[in-house]
């Protein structure tokens, strides 16, 4: 049996079932077990919009090097039941090389899957589960998958103990027995995965929403106000108790309008603050964000994008909020837009966003998405970077203190409530240097200039993008799509086509000169993104940042962009 054709050393497994079947739990254990066996891994989950029941799938890909996307095809599909599996048919590409593992007792393999030509391996999963007190089919299936993939039994057991730690002794015991029974059922092993050298020391198992939470804490965020929304809620649920542990707090607001104004109020008080939301919530927050820009109060929003517009596809991913993030605020409102390039990078990018917002006294929008937020990865621990960028606070203001002073770099030292002699009124109305409302043209021009100057003139260093490779073929991408582009480039290079990748982390203000330098000499330029409107492509065109003849590969969600389709697109025009 072949492993994932996208990379000789990666294996893709999908575990599908109806809600409550334990597909995701089995996937989480598989990921942890593979990690303990020395593999890197990535788990994405797919579910419908229902709360209980419906469909549920965990897709796990593991291999010998870090993985930034799902592959083009699956090696193994495990059907815990077939109740809603038709909804997954196009998310889990199978072929004649693949294997479908199932219990005939749950029914024959449905035509949508059987038609792939994948080899069917029936196993008595149900029977084994029934023989164990408290036994469950998903755990038996997990044992069989572990054996097939060549995972050591101890790694599986450790995975069970880690993931089910809070379930209680009897559940744990029954699960371990089921895994052992399933392990014994395995018909034949898959290709064993080579573990990379160096062992698992220092690696993390972390989800993207949690990673943004870690970045927020590292960046100094100590107040969060938010309204729950899919797929951002896990970030808030993770942060609520942990903010308290570091001396901060989270307030569940009555709506998104309240959330954003609450964080602006808290930040006015001097506490770095953040909110997290998804598309519809971001729409509601835009007025407040304009206020933060005008009143120069730091504010950070992590927008975990989902399919849009409107309520769209809440549980699945898309990169279609770039336009609103760049252009949604009324008036001339320069601000920062950033996008993490991987789950691991959610830590750095969120921390950087907080620091930049604090230092530049402005708004930073972080465009994460569902495919990052609700996935987990086995990765090297994100490096702890010192936080050199803090808010410029005026602790001993002079008599003539001017909150919105027209400084050379555009950043004006800010006093915080409680500081004598620094009293001012922060204002979303246009104002003069003292903060007094003013509708005079000169004041408006001066303040607009200053708010732009502080963003345009700042030295963002090399973190504005991740650059890889060289050559006449250049691919510009952003955010989560970088993972698929990286893998596509690996294949192109293996086939003799060198590729240079420019994965944008800082989307606004656009680093035009740095981008021009990175694109210098490129003969063919592609812009790759996951949305219908080619939003980045159009933005770069508007900024005159693309050479003539640049092409767009823009495909909407919710299916993830796969490396194979990127390779196909850019080679078709070679």
């Amino acid at each position, binding site marked *: 049996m072949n492993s994932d054709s996208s990379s000789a050393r990666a294996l893709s497994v999908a575990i599908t079932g109806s809600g409550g079947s334990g597909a995701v739990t089995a996937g989480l254990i598989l990921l942890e077990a593979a990690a303990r066996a020395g593999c890197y891994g990535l788990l994405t989950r797919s579910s419908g919009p229902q709360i209980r029941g419906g469909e549920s799938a965990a897709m796990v890909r593991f291999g010998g090097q870090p993985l930034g996307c799902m592959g083009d095809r699956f090696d193994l599909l495990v059907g815990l039941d077939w109740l809603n599996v038709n909804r997954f048919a196009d998310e889990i590409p199978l072929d004649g090389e693949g294997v479908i593992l199932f219990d005939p007792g749950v029914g024959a393999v449905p035509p949508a899957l059987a038609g792939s030509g994948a080899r069917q391996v029936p196993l008595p999963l149900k029977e084994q589960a029934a023989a164990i007190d408290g036994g469950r089919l998903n755990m038996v299936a997990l044992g069989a998958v572990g054996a097939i993939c060549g995972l050591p039994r101890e790694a599986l057991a450790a995975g069970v103990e880690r993931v089910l730690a809070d379930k209680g002794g009897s559940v744990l015991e029954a699960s371990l027995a089921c895994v052992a029974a399933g392990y014994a059922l395995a018909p034949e092993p898959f290709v064993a995965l080579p573990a990379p050298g160096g062992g698992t020391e220092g690696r*993390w198992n972390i989800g993207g929403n949690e990673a943004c939470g870690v970045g927020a804490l590292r960046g100094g965020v100590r107040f969060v106000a938010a309204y729950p929304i899919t797929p951002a809620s896990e970030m808030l649920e993770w942060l609520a108790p*942990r903010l*308290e*542990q570091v*001396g901060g707090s989270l307030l569940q607001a009555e709506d998104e309008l309240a959330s954003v*104004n609450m964080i602006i*109020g808290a930040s006015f008080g001097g506490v770095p603050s953040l909110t997290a939301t998804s598309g519809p919530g971001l729409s509601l927050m835009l007025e407040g964000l304009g206020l933060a820009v005008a009143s120069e109060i730091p504010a950070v929003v992590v927008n975990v994008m989902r399919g849009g517009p409107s309520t769209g596809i809440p549980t699945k991913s898309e990169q279609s909020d770039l336009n609103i993030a760049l252009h949604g605020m009324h008036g001339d409102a320069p601000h920062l837009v950033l996008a993490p390039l991987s789950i691991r990078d959610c830590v750095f990018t969120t921390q950087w966003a907080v620091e930049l917002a604090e230092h530049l006294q402005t708004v930073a929008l972080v465009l994460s998405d569902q495919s990052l937020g609700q996935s987990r990865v086995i990765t090297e621990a994100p490096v702890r970077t010192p936080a050199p960028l803090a808010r410029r606070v005026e602790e001993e203001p002079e008599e003539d203190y001017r909150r919105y002073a027209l400084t050379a770099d555009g950043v004006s030292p800010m006093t915080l409530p*409680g500081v004598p002699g620094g009293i001012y*009124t922060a204002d979303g109305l246009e104002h003069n240097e003292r903060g007094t409302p003013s509708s005079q043209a000169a004041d408006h021009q001066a303040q607009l200039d200053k708010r732009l100057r502080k963003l345009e003139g700042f030295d963002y260093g090399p973190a504005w993008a991740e650059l890889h490779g060289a050559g006449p073929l250049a691919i510009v991408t952003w955010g989560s799509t970088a993972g698929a582009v990286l893998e596509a480039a690996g294949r192109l290079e293996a086939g003799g086509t060198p590729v240079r990748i420019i994965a944008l982390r800082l989307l606004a203000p656009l680093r035009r000169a740095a981008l021009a330098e990175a694109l210098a000499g490129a003969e063919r330029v592609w812009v790759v993104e996951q949305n219908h409107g080619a939003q980045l492509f159009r933005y770069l065109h508007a900024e005159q940042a693309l050479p003539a003849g640049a092409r767009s590969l823009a495909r909407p969600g919710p299916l993830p962009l796969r490396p194979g389709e990127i390779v196909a697109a850019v080679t078709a025009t070679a």
Partner: protein
Amino acid sequence: MTVAALRAKDYKSDIKPVWCPGCGDFAVLSALTKALAHLGLPKERAALISGIGCSSRLPAYINAYGFHGVHGRALAAASGLKAARPDLAVLAVGGDGDGFSIGGNHFLHACRRNMDMTYIVMDNEVYGMTKGQASPTTGPDWMDSKMTPHGPGVRRFQPAAIALAAGAGFIARGFSGDPSGLTRILAAAIEYPGFAFVQVLSPCPTFRPDHRDWKEQVHGLEAEPTGNAVEAARILQADDGMTTGILYAEELPVWQPRNQASASIAEIEEEFRL
């Protein structure tokens, strides 16, 4: 060295109000500075938060930290500030449109969240800044707005009764034509440990000249302030909207952050380690 007692004028900024001559908000500004002086609150430890509207300009006229935000969101910004900075005296101020129409949802939830802050609504039953449209507290038969030529035709919003139903623990009504009574109410509201709501009848001479009658219509509460919500509900349901004084005062659980640092970030990150 002894610190000189603060006087009302110490709380006045040097910015000239945009209000029309005769506006009731001048009296609110004056009463507020007197109340702050009476309480001896250091001016840098007070923060006034507002939304949009004539009365929402007030923070700029007070010599304290101020925040003039967007329409309807004063209570949200004030709540965030108080959660982050419990050491500050936080006051939200604004008008009837800002507080009860666009900000209505925040009003309900600020009442029930019961953070320790004061909310002063200068109620003139009209949108003054946009030149004379009906507000939630405008009567159904008021015919003077071009936007509602047949009158709003909608029942009035009942701020005090709604605040009570939403869970507020301190509800008072003042009148800008009674500055000393208003000063006493504001001082009590700022001292109250929780969300204190003060509706101030503050006439708009420009768009509601008929409110000259308010001087004859207002009357004090005949009984002592009640701490009984059922009794308060009875009083407020029977009320003509012109009763001034503290209408309800009861100490209720106050929302405050439970931030007690107990771990480092590095310790928290251990949960991800294999």
